[in-house]
């Protein structure tokens, strides 16, 4: 499925920051992670990830360094900075509110909180 451009623009940053929350990574690995998470349902134009990463870096949310890939080639790695972690916490709150509202309207959408509690929606739970 090709998602609406505005929607992609809105969730790309929190998605990338969340992936980097698990540790340092690089562009291609981040995209593979997105592919896995969406089960192939979401198609990104691959290259568009990179301007988003660079913007996150310009905003001071992530730091980058050039390291070596297994092949010996140069590869650019990105890591979450403290400011990025803070921004992500804030974004998570906003998305929780948005998902909760939509979940109540559409039914069946839940947001699993870190404590394992489900909120919003009800009925058969489909995890987002």
């Amino acid at each position: 499925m090709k998602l609406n451009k505005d929607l992609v623009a809105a969730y790309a940053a929190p998605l990338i920051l969340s992936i980097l929350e698990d540790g340092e990574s690089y562009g291609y690995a981040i995209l593979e992670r997105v592919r896995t998470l969406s089960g192939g349902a979401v198609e990104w134009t691959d290259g568009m990830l990179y301007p988003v990463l660079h913007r996150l870096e310009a905003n001071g949310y992530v730091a980058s360094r050039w390291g070596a890939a297994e092949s010996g080639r140069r590869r650019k790695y990105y890591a979450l900075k403290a400011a990025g972690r803070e921004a992500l916490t804030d974004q998570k709150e906003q998305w929780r509110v948005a998902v909760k509202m939509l979940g109540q309207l559409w039914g069946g959408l839940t947001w699993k909180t870190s404590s394992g509690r489900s909120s919003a929606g009800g009925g058969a739970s489909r995890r987002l």
Partner: protein
Amino acid sequence: MEDIERQIECWRRSLPASLAERPDVIDELEGHLRDELARLVAGGVAADEAWAKAVERLGTPDALAAEFAKVPPARWLPGTVVSAVFLVAGLVGGLIASRVWRGQDGILATHILTVTWGYLAALAAGALAVWAVAEGAYRGDGRREMEAFRRTAGGLAWASLSMTAVGVVLGAVWASGRLGRAWDWDPREVGGLGVLLSAGVSVVLVRLNARAGKAAAIAGSTAAVLAWFVPPLLETGGASGIGLGVVLGAVVGGQLVVMALALAHPRAWGMADLA
């Protein structure tokens, strides 16, 4: 595989100019293409077809360039701080000068003011370069910090070049009217010429290469220190002259050491130049 290398070369050359002047971005995208190519080939896709697919998935060069153009330039705190201090010092200096020299020789006053601005800009660019060398030695150079250094130091070197040029010309005009000669190779004139030349070299080198740019910016600030303090030192003489000379020697010595580090320390060279 040779074929793929040729195709990668073709792809790199086909990118729009705005991307072509950012080799770090292209390297990153090329790395992506290679990873995608490897994945597709490992999945049984023929190399040519895999390459076409990888390039298509990456997006059109124009669309990519448009997205990258929207990314704001890197913020580099030292650059912002030094530029701000320079601007404020320049403005305050200008205000004070306009009050002090009100009703006095306008050419001489403007000469002193522009030369002061020119020398200050050279000192600011040098300070920035010292910071960049220290930061690079401490944690390795980031590409974006390097770009920010080149942008800020380049601007300061330009300011130094233009202000000092105006100042030197005005000095010559004043001297020809008041002293009956435009140029006499006295220490102040030689100093001004030295700052002018080193600023010109800095403008060029900062644009060409970050490592050489850092060394040139530090050399420019050394020229400014010498131009500023050697003439009064020569006029002072005696015990206080020796004290001033020691301080001056220490400052210049420190600058030379950092300049050598900028040129020699491998981590201070920056990825930009190793690539």
